[in-house]
């Protein structure tokens, strides 16, 4: 679906070699007998797993242990290493068993049964059983989990049907949606879960043990010596440092102080990976799109919404913001979705003339409105392109920048104003899950004050589909409706990118976090 895996990009940076030479000549020693530059340096080369070493990672957003259920960007390097899931979906959506060993679907795909791994213990020493799975799901459904998945899990019965067996029964078919939900549900320790809230006690079954935590700045994990997989993990420990400024983050990578950086924009990541020492890791996806308040002028007119859909220069966004790695479909779903209607994907392409006509048809030439956006570099850059596109077709947008903390409450109450830009980690989830998980696509209670009986019916039909062919037919009908009403206009689905030192090998990349259970630092 997206370009995945590692890309050593472009030509080598000759300056780096030169610099290496310079410091080898002893320039680094000018400073003193010990040099911090040297001490943090790293090398690279072999292919066989090596035991030992500490992996240092950096994130731009701070780790928030209290948000262990949600895919916060700051949590990607610790969450799946301390707390494990029943299974993890890797970057190719392959199901890798962790705490579950096998599973099956039955009863018209409405019952899911999983056999659990035996002989697993929490970091506290307590044995892991089916009750812990039930407990974790209960917490999730009680509101600790992603609010966006609550609708899909409504009416679920999660029961321990043996000491090491769990059964989920649902009023709706599960074959599409159960995997991503298992992927997002970490198994927590019922005795200590309250410690997760402030990070004072974080207990899981994972390959690494939460050892020291400074809120907002630093987190250290050490090897779990009694991990259930023999010989794993290879690493002695993992450290996460928070570096908010991208220049500084790039500098930290360059200096060898850190080996993996998350939270850099794609373009920044490409900058650093253009040399030899770093690989670009691209995986899963973020969906970028524009929502409109359809209950108030000017976007109560569907023609104007279509005009915007034609006005946006998706290729420019892809090339100049997403580093050319994105796809630019008119539909919000990932191309891997069951029954993806590929022929509808390019309904809206860049066509300023048509957009201008539609603006005139809507009688909106010269219309002034605000576009709300997150006060982050990537949304800003997208805004600049879209604002330019819209001015070119006769509209007059102005920005309304909000912090994420201010933006999201307004989004969930539909008060962001006439238009707004969002990005969402729901990209690539099954459409049956997305229509509930992505606020913009919800039949009711969405952020655009959009309410349409036919849309609601089509969305429900998709959720109720229990096999591939009905899913495909219904997804096509729903897609057509989304395109016609254009209450949400996607313009980019782009992989999440990280820069990673070439010496780091065998990282499993999940949607909500990496697991370093098999990772090692090549010498």
């Amino acid at each position: 679906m997206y370009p995945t895996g590692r890309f050593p990009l472009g030509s080598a940076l000759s300056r780096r070699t030169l610099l290496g030479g310079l410091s080898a000549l002893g320039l680094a020693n000018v400073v003193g007998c010990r040099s911090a530059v040297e001490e943090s340096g790293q090398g690279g080369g072999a292919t066989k797993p090596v035991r030992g070493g500490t992996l240092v990672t950096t994130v731009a957003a701070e780790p928030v242990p209290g948000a262990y259920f949600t895919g916060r960007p700051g949590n990607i390097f610790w969450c799946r290493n301390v707390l494990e899931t029943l299974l993890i979906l890797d970057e190719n959506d392959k199901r890798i068993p962790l705490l579950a060993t096998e599973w099956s679907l039955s009863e018209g795909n409405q019952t899911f049964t999983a056999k659990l791994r035996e002989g697993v213990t929490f970091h506290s020493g307590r044995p892991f059983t089916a009750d812990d799975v039930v407990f974790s799901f209960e917490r999730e459904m009680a509101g600790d989990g992603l609010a966006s998945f609550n609708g899909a899990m409504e009416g679920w019965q999660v029961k321990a049907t043996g000491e090491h067996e769990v059964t989920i029964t649902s009023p709706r078919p599960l074959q599409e949606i159960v995997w991503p939900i298992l992927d997002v549900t970490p198994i927590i320790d019922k005795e200590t879960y309250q410690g997760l809230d402030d990070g004072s006690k974080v207990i899981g079954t994972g390959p690494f043990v939460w050892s020291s935590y400074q809120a907002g700045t630093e987190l250290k994990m050490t090897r779990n010596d009694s991990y259930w997989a023999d010989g794993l993990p290879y690493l002695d420990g993992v450290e996460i440092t928070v570096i908010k400024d991208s220049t500084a983050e790039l500098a930290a990578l360059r200096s060898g102080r850190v080996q993996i950086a998350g939270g850099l924009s794609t373009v920044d990541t490409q900058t650093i990976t253009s040399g030899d020492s770093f690989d670009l890791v691209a995986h899963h996806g973020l969906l970028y799109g524009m929502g409109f308040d359809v209950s108030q002028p000017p976007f109560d007119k569907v023609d104007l919404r279509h005009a915007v859909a034609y006005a946006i220069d998706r290729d420019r966004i892809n090339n100049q913001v997403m580093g050319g790695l994105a796809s630019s479909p008119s539909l919000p779903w990932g191309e891997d979705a069951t029954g993806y209607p590929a022929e509808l994907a390019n309904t809206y392409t860049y066509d300023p003339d048509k957009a201008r006509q539609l603006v005139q048809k809507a009688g909106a030439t010269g219309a002034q409105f605000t576009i709300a956006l997150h006060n982050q570099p990537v949304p800003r850059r997208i805004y600049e392109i879209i604002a330019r596109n819209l001015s070119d077709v006769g509209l007059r947008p102005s920005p309304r920048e909000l912090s994420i903390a201010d933006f999201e409450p307004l989004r969930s109450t539909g008060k962001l104003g006439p238009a707004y830009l969002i990005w969402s980690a729901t990209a690539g989830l099954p459409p049956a899950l997305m229509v509930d998980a992505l606020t913009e696509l919800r039949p009711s209670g969405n952020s655009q004050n959009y309410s349409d009986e036919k849309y609601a019916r089509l969305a429900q039909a998709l959720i109720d589909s229990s096999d591939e062919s009905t899913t495909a037919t219904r997804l096509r009908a729903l897609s057509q409706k989304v395109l016609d009403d254009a209450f949400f206009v996607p313009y980019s689905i782009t992989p999440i990118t990280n820069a990673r030192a070439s010496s780091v090998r065998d990282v499993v990349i999940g949607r909500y976090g990496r697991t370093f259970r098999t990772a090692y630092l090549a010498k």
Partner: protein
Amino acid sequence: MTTDTETTSGAARRESGGAVRRYLAALRTPRGAIGAGLLGLLVLLAVLAPVLFPGGYDDQGDNALAGASGAHWMGTDELGRDIVARTIFGLRTDLTLLLTAVPASAVIGTLMGLAGVISRWLGAGMQRLLDVILGFPGIVLGMSVVLVLGTGWSALFVSILVIGLPLFGRQARAGLQVEQEREYVLAARVLGVRRRTVLTRHVLPNIVDPIVVNAAVYMVVAVFIEAGLSIVGLGIQPPIPSLGAMLNTGARYLEVHPAYVMGPGLVLLLLTLAFTLLSNALNKAVLRR
């Protein structure tokens, strides 16, 4: 808040005329001439920006982060826009901000400082208020303003205005106190000349010098405020360029495209240099008397 000229403040000026002549003399010193010349050049560039760059600051192209070429002397930014054009328009943004916010700050600050003329209580109250503002380190005050007003032009304007108030207010107050003790002022009051007349005839002309010098000094601080807030991401809203905002984005491409930082960085340095030289020259000219 830089109060380099505080040493000059006590010595308030006696003579009311000749201020302009003094400033012109300052411009004839080497520092003054260079500072004024630089500033004149920068203002000229900023004013002529729309003529020099008819494409404006938001002329996006396909060739992003390109190196220098005949069409783009310093290459292009991440959206394929000409860096020189954006730098000059950014300079225009900065100068507009400075030349509106700093005088506003000077006028309001001075009035606050002179409030003591109306009533002793008001004067003291204003001083306390200025003390409070002075207590806030510049960028902390700026961030507080951003918290209330959101990011954008108005937050920058208000920040620069408010941060400068104590500088001008205390100066005016000190000047006022010195002048009020002077014989000719006492004499005028004994003779029954109205307060306002005393103020406008005698006090104001004599505190003009420090205000002008301080305004020049504060220009530099104001540039720092704009750029500082922009660099931590709390500056002007896109797509309008400002020197600080360009440094903020340009810093991401230090290695692939150093000109992106160098262009706005150089102009910003020239701008602060111009104001530093000018304020030095003015200060010296004023002191020398």
